């Protein structure tokens, strides 16, 4: 309570299937739903969980780059299409690359804290299968410093950015220590995704997941140091969540037991035009986690569930260190030893994460929040984990660019 001047709650979480390669219903040459479909499906999925949606005061949508993938801007304009309650109410889109969803969460919470709204519908969306990955890589490169970095960058710009991090980790901590952790991260992600019917890897039937994760890279066709299994996939999807004040919950007709409390957040920005200070750590993520814990008055040991931004397996390992669960260079061993599995000491990315569920970029931060809320409120169905009474907190860490734009948010289960 020390950080927020009043209580803020999150409820009515919902997300769509993450559509893309891996899903049986996905066919690249067949017509697929457009971005407005995803916005509506996720928005209604949340709205239909509250009794009185007319009391939602505002709509905030996180999206990275629909203007290129879908040639669509002005996404705030879709809220009144989702539900008439939004007609002539404030609605807007926020953007922070792959952390667009994270920023949408923060913008929603801030609006409530500022007493400008009692209830905000927060959506995140991205539709990326409109172009082949080779062209999508150009669009996603906008998460870096385009005019300063793109020309000399790799064809697959972001995979290469994290491949360089993997290479630096191999060099510093040893390939034989880091690589198994990356493969284990992949295996955990798929195992979790198999419990989540909406995950892009839900249909994955590979028997030897760890062996697959250890596949040798093909630098001529892709990147050095990482293989395609180290990467989150190209995804279409959306997620939605309602934030409300105490009064807002009441007006919406939501029982407190169906909500979780937002305890703190940290929003941290690094300079886009400078290279990361150290490739072997996520410096900005670490600052965000420390700040979020401090503001919540808790430490990593209080968390019962964690959501990190594993756009690449190596990012998952470094994020575990940044969140304070493993020391510098110890993330790989921590993961390999099973600590981040669903029955481990800190269940992480329990619905599959970005590798297993998918990474519809602008939706990811919101999807992470939905999963934390679902876990804490016991609504995670097949992928629900058990909570000890001493572990009533959950945290998400959402990252944009190469550790540039970060949002961490801490939630608490309601007694």
């Amino acid at each position, binding site marked *: 309570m020390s950080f927020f001047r009043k209580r803020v709650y999150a409820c009515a979480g919902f997300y769509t299937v993450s559509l893309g390669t891996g899903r049986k219903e996905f066919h690249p040459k067949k017509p697929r739903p457009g971005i407005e479909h995803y916005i509506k499906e996720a928005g209604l999925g949340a709205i239909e969980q509250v009794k009185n949606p007319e009391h939602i005061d505002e709509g905030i949508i996180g999206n990275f780059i629909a203007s290129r993938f879908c040639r669509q801007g002005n996404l705030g304009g879709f809220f009144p299409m989702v539900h008439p309650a939004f007609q002539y109410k404030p609605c807007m889109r926020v953007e922070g690359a792959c952390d667009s969803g994270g920023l949408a969460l923060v913008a929603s919470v801030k609006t409530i804290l500022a007493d400008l709204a009692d209830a905000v519908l927060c959506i995140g969306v991205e539709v990326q299968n409109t172009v*082949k990955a*080779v*062209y999508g*890589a*150009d669009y996603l*490169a906008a998460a870096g410093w385009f005019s300063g970095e*793109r*020309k*000399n960058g*790799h*064809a*697959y710009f972001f995979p290469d950015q994290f491949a360089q991090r993997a290479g630096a980790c191999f060099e510093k901590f040893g390939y034989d220590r880091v690589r198994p952790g990356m493969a284990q991260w992949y295996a955990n992600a798929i195992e979790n995704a198999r419990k989540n019917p909406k995950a892009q890897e839900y249909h994955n039937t590979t028997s030897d997941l760890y062996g697959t994760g250890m596949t040798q890279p093909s*630098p*001529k*066709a*892709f990147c050095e140091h990482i293989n395609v299994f180290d990467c989150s996939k190209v995804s279409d999807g959306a997620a939605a969540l309602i934030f409300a004040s105490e009064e807002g919950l009441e007006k919406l007709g939501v029982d407190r037991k169906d909500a979780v409390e937002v305890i703190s957040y940290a929003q941290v920005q690094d300079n886009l035009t400078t290279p990361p200070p150290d490739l072997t750590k996520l410096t900005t993520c670490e600052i965000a986690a420390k700040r979020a814990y401090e503001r919540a008055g808790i430490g990593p040991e209080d968390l019962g569930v964690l959501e990190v931004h594993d756009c690449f397996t190596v990012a998952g390992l470094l994020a575990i260190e940044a969140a304070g669960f493993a020391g510098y260079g110890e993330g790989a061993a921590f993961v390999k030893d099973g600590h981040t599995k669903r029955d481990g000491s800190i269940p992480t990315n329990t619905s599959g994460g970005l590798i297993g569920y998918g990474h519809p970029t602008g939706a990811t931060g919101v999807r992470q929040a939905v999963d934390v809320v679902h876990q804490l409120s016991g609504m995670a169905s097949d992928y629900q984990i058990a909570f000890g009474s001493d572990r009533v907190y959950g945290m998400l860490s959402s990252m944009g660019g190469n550790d540039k734009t970060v949002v961490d948010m801490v939630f608490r289960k309601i007694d």
Partner: protein
Amino acid sequence: MNLDERLFNVTVIGAAGKMGSGIGVLIAQEMAKLKLKPENKDNVYRLNLIDVNEQALDGLRAYMSAQLLKAAEKSVVMLRDMYRERQDLVENADIIDAFVGDASRVLNFSTDTDVARNSHLIFEAISENEKIKIKVYKKLNKICRSDAFYLTNTSSIPIGYLDEMAGLGGRLIGYHFYNPPVVQRLVEVIAAQNTTRELRSTAQELGKRLHKKLVPAKDISGFIGNGHFMRDGLHAIAEVVRLKGKFKYTGAVYVMNRISQDFLVRPMGIFQLIDYVGIDVFQCILKVMRTHLRDDSLKDRLIDRMVKDKVLGGQYPDGSQKDGFLKYEKNRPAGIYDIRKKEYVPITDEWKKKIDKKIGPTPERFVPWRGLLMDAKKEEKLGLYFDELKKMDTLGAELAVNYLKKTREIGQSLVRQGVAGSDDDVNAVLTNGFFWLYGPINEYI
């Protein structure tokens, strides 16, 4: 003259056909890559794509654009490096467009063989008709440079014979791509006795640049690929004749197609494969081999009757399968041609069930070809599968084991006759060119 110099000016004859167009795509890419090297900026590169059919050339233009785009998309990692100095090209899309443009500017589409006169390398991929081939070579030999090298895509006609008839003086080599050349890794390389050393080494170097698996074959009609495939097909047809009393003709075709696909874990059944190649092409190759090998067993009445009925198989321009022994719906077998009634009998579930019952089930360890294709333990799994198959007392197992024995015998006889240098070469052709999971000369039986 080294290969880089030979690639200044290249011709593909029969360029609008399935094989010619694929060869064109591969060579165009190589030429464009050379053209992009700073030291070659003042050189003119020209790939003449010649076909007699003007309308087909229009189709070829569209095909080349689409294939070059695909190739550029696949090679974007390398292309970014090649275009590093071009500051105006920033995104992958800019670079891909630039490459397709550069490669397209190399192309010269024509119906006139005279445009080949300055070519140093000439690929020929016209129909498998030796009279036409000889005529074309004679004409080219008159107009082209005296040091031009010729690479023929023939899959059956002896190279030495073509060379001698056209008076090419050892400047011809067999360079047999598999369909489609852009995808299939295998190239059978057939040097005639008098093929020059320089051409042999040029062919080797080119294969390396194209990332192809080169398998040498002796200059004996049919070489390894068709030497095996024709006899493999004739075995299946002989079995149909033997089984037609028990299953009727259409049932026997179904049985042998299923045995070859499922029981032998191949990518497609033997009759589907003959349809894919074209029944008329199958007949034509048999004739070439029969003539040059003086082997009257390389003839089949059923094939001749199918061609007479104009039931030919082959493919439509969009790649979909034409009806042949089998009728296809969405590229899947849906009926079988009844040679007596001259019509297709539909494959119904009930009909299949009845026949399947007579041949018995596949072994319990059966996994379809696709399921094993990427499996790192496929050899071990196939070993256990065939062990189980051998122990089964069913007609299906008996037919499958006989088929395995026959294909091994065919393979071994190709080695004995010197067509293939080794068992490995036979197996390489069948696994790379026909996508078999295992070679015909194996330890499974």
